[in-house]
Each structure stands twice: as C-alpha cells, then as structure tokens.
C-alpha cells in the first residue's frame, strides 16, 4: 500500500514533512491586548504593539503558553520548561517591526508523535519534531490598486503554533490523514478551531523523492501556504511527479520555495532571492526567557479531555466497532458526541450504521453539519428503539427516517400518524400470504419444484401488499410453511 510513482527508471518513493501553522485559540494576541477575531474591519484590531510603534513593548499572553503546552501534551510531546523568544529578521511591508517574534533554538514543545488512521483501518505513527509559538504577520492586498499594496495589520501578532513533523510521511493519503488528525486533536483540546478557510490552519509542505530502496534523503522543495487538505494532497502529487521528471531527464532538483496553483494543478517556483533566508535570529531583548514549572504542566495535563485515539479505542472495545468506522466517528468531535447519544443504552453497531450511512448521507445532501442536523440524536435513538421493540420494520424505519430528515418530527408520532406500525397480528399476515399464494400459482409451483429463490419474490409481494408493515421474518416463516405444505 506504499505510495510509489512509477517512473521510466523504476519506482520512486515520496518523502514528506509538514509545517502546520495553527492559530492558538485565544481572545487576545500573543503580545498585545488586541482581538484576534476573524473578518473584522481593516486595522480595527491593532494595538500600537502590533503596529510596532517606537517604544512599544511586548507582554506575553499566558493563555497562548497554556494552549501550546496543551497541544504539546495532546501530541505526546516533551514540554520544554525553559524556552526562549527570538527575533527572526526580514523585510516585508506587512511585518511592521522588521522582525517576527518566534522561537528558534529553544521551542516550548519538543519531540512527540501522532498516530494516523488510514482508510483501510491501518494506523501509522508520524514523529513531531517540535512545536513553537510565533506571531503571525499582517496581510498584504496586492489587487486593490495598480500602483500600491494595501496593508491590514489585524493579523499582525495573532498567536500561531508552528507544528513541524519529521519527514515520516510517505504520500498524499498519509499527508491528508496527518492534517485531519492534527486538526481533530486540536479541536478536541480546544486549542485551535481548525478552520482552514479562515486561515486558522495553514500548511507548508516539504517534498523530496528518492528511488525505492534508497536510504538517504535527496534535496527537498518547500510548497508554501497551502490552505486545504485536498490542495495539500494535490500539491504533493504534482510536485513529486515534477521532481521524478527532473531526475529522469538527467537534471537536479534545486532547493527552493514553490507555490501551488490549484487552478492550473501545478507548483511553480517563487524565485525567492537567496538573501531572503538570512534571518539573523537572536534572543529578543524585550522578552525574558520563559520558565515553566513541572506543576504548571501537570495542572494542564490533569484537564486534558479524552482524545480521538482513546475515544476510538473505547468505541472498538465497548461498542464492538471496526477500527475504520471508529476513526470516522471520532474524527469530528461533534459527530462522536452525536453517535454516543444515539448509542447510549442501545446496540452500538446499529447506532454506528445509522449515523454513518443514513445520517451522514442526509447531512451531505442538505449541506449541513452534525451540529445543525435536522434529526436530533435523541430522535434517531427513539427510531432505533421502535425498530428494536418490533413496532416498525427496518424498511419502514428508513421511510420514517426520510420524513424525519424533512420535518425533524418525532418518530413515534410519524409512525402513529401514517399508520406504519408493523403488523404482528398472525391472522392478518396469514390472510395476505394466502392471497398472494392463491394469486400466483405458477410461482408457488416453482418453489415446490425446488426453486428456493422464488421465496424472496413472494416476500416482496407480501410486503408490498401490506405497505411494508408486515414483519419480514414472520412472513418468511409462514410462506415456507404454507408453500411446503
């Protein structure tokens, strides 16, 4: 199942490392009291610190540290009690200070690991290299005026957690699974809302290729600022194929920064000038080194919620779910909570089937999320109860479900109103069975002659005659008895 690119000279393996910028969920910025809210009027969330007015000093927001440590613990990572903020110097109009405050040599979080859930139920571990805190830059708008670039500093100073993976990822599918898992973990932890459209989760992708069996890493390129899981996967595919093409035509891959153009489906060089990478890092003299205590870290650890991996394990153990189903359910915290409400005191597998097959397809069709589902978990549970106690058949349950999806109604009331209660009265079923057999002597003969399959056709006819309200098992038994007799 390894992802390989078939080249003219053989198979090529793809080696990927991801740098994810996740906005730490806070009300205020990393070093100022301005708001972090998305989509506000330009420059309305800017303090003099964020605009780098002379003499303004940064003061660290404690919540940002807490969110970074919390995320680190969720990634099974080492927490560094001593960490240092440094200045990363470069020139750009949306970076008013001329430097970004970031962590370089001593990040707050060290090595950790994430477990990926792959589509076929397998899992794979990907190492985390580090997590550090840094400021976001402002936003440049290049398309507002022919001669000028407009600058909005609302994002300037917004807290970002940069999460760097080890080069353990081996293809687009794994890269997608990594991003989804990281997002799920942070959403469970409440440390990042994971909203990729609003830029609270962005990704730089490092890609290199090597011939299958090679042990050393070749030159990598970095694709900057890819903002959806799908684009990350596409960009990797395109870039890996481009690199294979370069090697196979006798060329060398150059270490450079590239951009993914989703419209054209290709990556292209940003032709960054070489001095751009001379960041001249040094410890920020305005900020003391950060020192955390073991007690502080333990306090945060004590408040960690159940995380996706633990929840998946629990679903497999207590509900008997398959690993691939359990990972789909836990991927979104809200979906998992919905499922648990439905499964509570009922059969877990049935609940899982109804949520994953019927509910998800209705949500998909209506373009809704599980939080504004037309059918509440409570009502779906009641529907399953009606099936379990034999009030309605599985077939009728699907019809009732469709009505619930449109009206949000109560299943018992719908069954009552439409007269859908299953006929369990033996004489009523018997009458229907007798009529159908009498009307179809040819098929009855076929059965007697040994064609067992015709029984299914009979069941279908009787269900039709009873508008689906007969109990299929009962019909089946009765048919066999009567046809054989």
């Amino acid at each position, binding site marked *: 199942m390894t992802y390989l690119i078939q080249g003219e000279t053989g198979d090529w393996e793809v080696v990927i490392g991801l740098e994810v910028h996740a906005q730490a969920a806070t009300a*205020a910025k990393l070093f100022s009291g301005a708001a972090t809210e998305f989509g506000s009027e330009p420059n309305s969330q800017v303090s003099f610190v964020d605009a780098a007015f002379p003499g303004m000093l940064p003061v*660290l*927001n404690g919540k940002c540290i807490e969110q970074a440590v919390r995320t680190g613990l969720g990634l099974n990572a080492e927490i560094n009690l001593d960490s240092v903020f440094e200045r990363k110097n470069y020139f750009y109009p949306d970076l008013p200070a001329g430097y970004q405050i970031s962590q370089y040599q001593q990040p707050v979080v060290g090595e950790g690991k994430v477990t990926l859930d792959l589509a076929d139920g397998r899992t794979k571990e990907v190492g985390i290299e580090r997590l550090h805190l840094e400021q976001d830059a402002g936003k440049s708008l290049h398309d507002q*005026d022919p001669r000028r*670039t407009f600058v909005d500093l609302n994002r300037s100073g917004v807290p970002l957690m940069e999460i760097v993976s080890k080069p353990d990822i081996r293809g687009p599918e794994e890269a997608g699974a990594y991003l989804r898992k990281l997002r799920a973990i942070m959403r469970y932890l409440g440390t990042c809302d994971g909203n990729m459209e609003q830029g609270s989760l962005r990704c730089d992708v490092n890609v290199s290729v090597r011939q299958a069996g090679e042990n050393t890493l070749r030159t990598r390129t970095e694709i900057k600022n890819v903002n959806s899981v799908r684009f990350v996967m596409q960009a990797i595919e395109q870039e890996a194929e481009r690199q294979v093409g370069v090697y196979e035509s006798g060329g060398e891959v150059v270490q450079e920064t590239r951009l993914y153009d989703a419209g054209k489906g290709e990556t292209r060089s940003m032709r960054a000038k070489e*001095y751009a990478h001379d960041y001249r890092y040094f410890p920020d003299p305005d900020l*003391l080194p950060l020192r955390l205590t073991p007690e502080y870290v333990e306090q945060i650890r004590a408040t960690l919620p159940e995380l996706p991996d633990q929840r998946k394990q629990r679903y497999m153990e207590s509900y008997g779910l398959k690993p691939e189903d359990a990972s789909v359910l836990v991927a979104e915290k809200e979906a998992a909570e919905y499922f648990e409400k439905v499964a509570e005191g009922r059969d877990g597998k049935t609940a899982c089937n109804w949520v994953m097959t019927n509910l998800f397809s209705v949500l998909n069709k209506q373009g809704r999320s599980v939080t504004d589902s037309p059918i509440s978990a409570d009502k779906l549970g009641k529907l399953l109860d009606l099936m379990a106690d034999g009030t309605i058949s599985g077939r009728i349950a699907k019809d009732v479900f469709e009505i619930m999806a449109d009206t949000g109604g109560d299943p018992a009331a719908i069954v009552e109103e439409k007269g859908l209660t299953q006929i369990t009265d033996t004489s009523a079923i018997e009458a229907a069975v007798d009529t159908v057999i009498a009307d179809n002597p040819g098929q009855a003969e076929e059965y007697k002659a040994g064609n067992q399959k015709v029984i299914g056709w009979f069941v279908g006819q009787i269900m039709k005659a009873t508008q689906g309200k007969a109990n299929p098992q009962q019909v089946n038994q009765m048919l066999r008895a009567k046809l054989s007799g």
Partner: protein
Amino acid sequence: MSLDIDTVKNIALLARIRVADETLEPLAHELSAIIGWVEQLAEVDTDGVAPMTSVTETIPDLREDVVNDGDRPDAVLANAPDGVDAFYTVPKVVE
C-alpha cells in the same frame, strides 16, 4: 574579525539602508573596529557558566487573555502617509 566590503553591502541591503559606494570602505573599517572592541569579551573564560539573561531571577509578567486594546484604526493610521480608507499603503511589492 574584520568585515569585507561585500558583507557590509549585504548588511546594508538586509537593513534597507542605502549606503553610497564610496562610504563602504570607511564603514567596513568602523564596523570592524566595533566588532574588535566587543570581541574582547571572548577573553573571559565562560566554560560551564549558564548564560545570564537578567540580573535578578525574574519570571516574566504574563498578560491575561483579555481584549483591552485595538479598535482605534484612526490612531493607528494617524501618521500613515498615503493611507487609503483604513489601510496602510506602500509601493506595490509584487509585479
């Protein structure tokens, strides 16, 4: 350590300071002298001594996660030359 002219040119570029060609040479001398002076510190044996970041062992003050600043675009943009609406503007930086 002494700086050559190319290094000085590069530092000027990174700092976005325009330096006339004829002043590069004297500037290189001046900067080299400053570095030489600071380099005297290297004579002190600091093996096994942890870097000191503060005279007193202080823990940084942390800010509460409360919004108590911003929401004054007029003040922020008051000195911006050529501002448009609530934006700063600069000469176009991409083609």
